[in-house]
């Protein structure tokens, strides 16, 4: 049921159809660049994953899979809401459009909020490559080791490695403790973790900015011409792509290592403050 589309045509287009298809095509081409952008990161990741499999799994085991799981569904739902938004704009229902845009924005913000909390936890656990400070627990472990064998007093301590060991062997949260991993390679994994999720977050922020703008435009009646639903659609293409990228980040970064549902639940409780974390 194609609605009767109304809308102004820009000065350089001959008719509405030309304009709409052109906009859509432009967005698709932009997505091509996005695919190759993330593709490059994934390619580098894969290259190392096949070399240092166990190390990468160890790194993954140290991540907060609870937050990631919840975020997955937040993002998925936002994909739905914006799709419904297209429909609303197309059917000439500005109010519905505004609500759907708002819902999408809220879901996206929630995602970012949780993501920020996750980064904060990682920071508290001292899981920053090349970090220079030991977490209190790690400090304790080191002290005990030195107490046991004073000879170890003067050997160099790599804070990241110690922090990682504490996290991985924290029986309350993680699955079976890891034995076979090289902490330096795990740093490599964390480089990927931070840069890839960082890029994803960056895309989320840009997307949210654009969504907010569209919301404002919607409030100002910009979308009263139903032909302009195509801009919502272009926006949704971008938003769906961000969702798509996450669908691959989840298994490659978070689910690579050994995890359990209970652990994920526990982690999420910690994240939202229902339980006390490693600290």
């Amino acid at each position, binding site marked *: *049921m*194609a*609605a*009767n*589309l*109304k*809308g*102004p*045509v*820009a*000065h350089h287009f001959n*008719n*509405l*159809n030309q304009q709409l*298809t052109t906009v*859509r*095509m432009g*967005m698709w*081409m*932009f*997505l091509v660049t996005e*695919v*190759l952008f993330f*593709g*490059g990161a994934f*390619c580098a990741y*894969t*290259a190392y994953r*096949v070399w240092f499999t166990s190390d990468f799994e160890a790194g993954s085991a140290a991540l907060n899979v609870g937050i990631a799981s919840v975020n*997955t*569904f937040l993002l998925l*739902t936002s*994909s*739905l809401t914006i*799709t*419904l938004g*297209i*429909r609303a704009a*197309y059917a000439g229902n500005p109010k519905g459009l505004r609500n759907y845009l708002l819902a999408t924005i809220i879901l996206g913000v929630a995602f970012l909020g949780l993501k920020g909390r996750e980064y904060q936890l990682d920071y508290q656990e001292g899981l920053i490559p090349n970090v220079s400070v030991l977490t209190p627990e790690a400090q304790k472990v080191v002290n005990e080791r030195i107490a046991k064998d004073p000879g170890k007093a003067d050997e160099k301590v790599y804070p990241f490695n110690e922090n990682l060991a504490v996290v991985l062997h924290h029986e309350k949260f993680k699955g079976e403790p890891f034995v076979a991993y090289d902490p330096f390679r795990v740093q490599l994994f964390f480089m990927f973790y931070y840069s890839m999720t960082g890029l994803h977050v960056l895309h989320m922020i840009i997307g949210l900015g654009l969504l907010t*703008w*569209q919301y404002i435009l919607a409030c100002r009646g*910009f979308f009263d011409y139903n032909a*302009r*639903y*195509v*801009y919502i659609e*272009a926006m949704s293409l*971008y938003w*769906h*792509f961000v*969702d*798509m990228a996450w*669908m691959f980040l*989840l*298994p*490659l970064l*978070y*689910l*690579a290592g050994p995890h359990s549902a209970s652990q*994920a639940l526990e982690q999420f409780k910690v994240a939202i403050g229902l339980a006390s974390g490693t600290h």
Partner: protein
Amino acid sequence: MDHDHTHTHAHGAGAEMHSQELVEHEVAPNAKSLTTFAVLAVLALLALFIGFSNLGEWKVVANLLVATVQACILAFFFMDLRQADKLTWLIALSSVFWTFLMFLFILTDQLTRHLGVL
């Protein structure tokens, strides 16, 4: 892509009004979108289930399989590849193809570098 908004927004004033049937593109009704969402959600649950299970090296394979299916559904229904014209398909596939080429060559080097050297 903000240029799209500003685009006709600015030109809206002077440009002449058009009103016409949109031929090649039909916007999915809500029911269809909800079904798609349901399927995607189930697949996401499946991904988590696999992630929490203990499949060894098959885990990543299964997970990527699920992710690929998810991506295809997303592209096909939410992103409307379902009814897109040939050109859009060409664009979409070219992105996949070139990413594949990048993987192919770079990984070939990573995996065969030790062969045939001194």
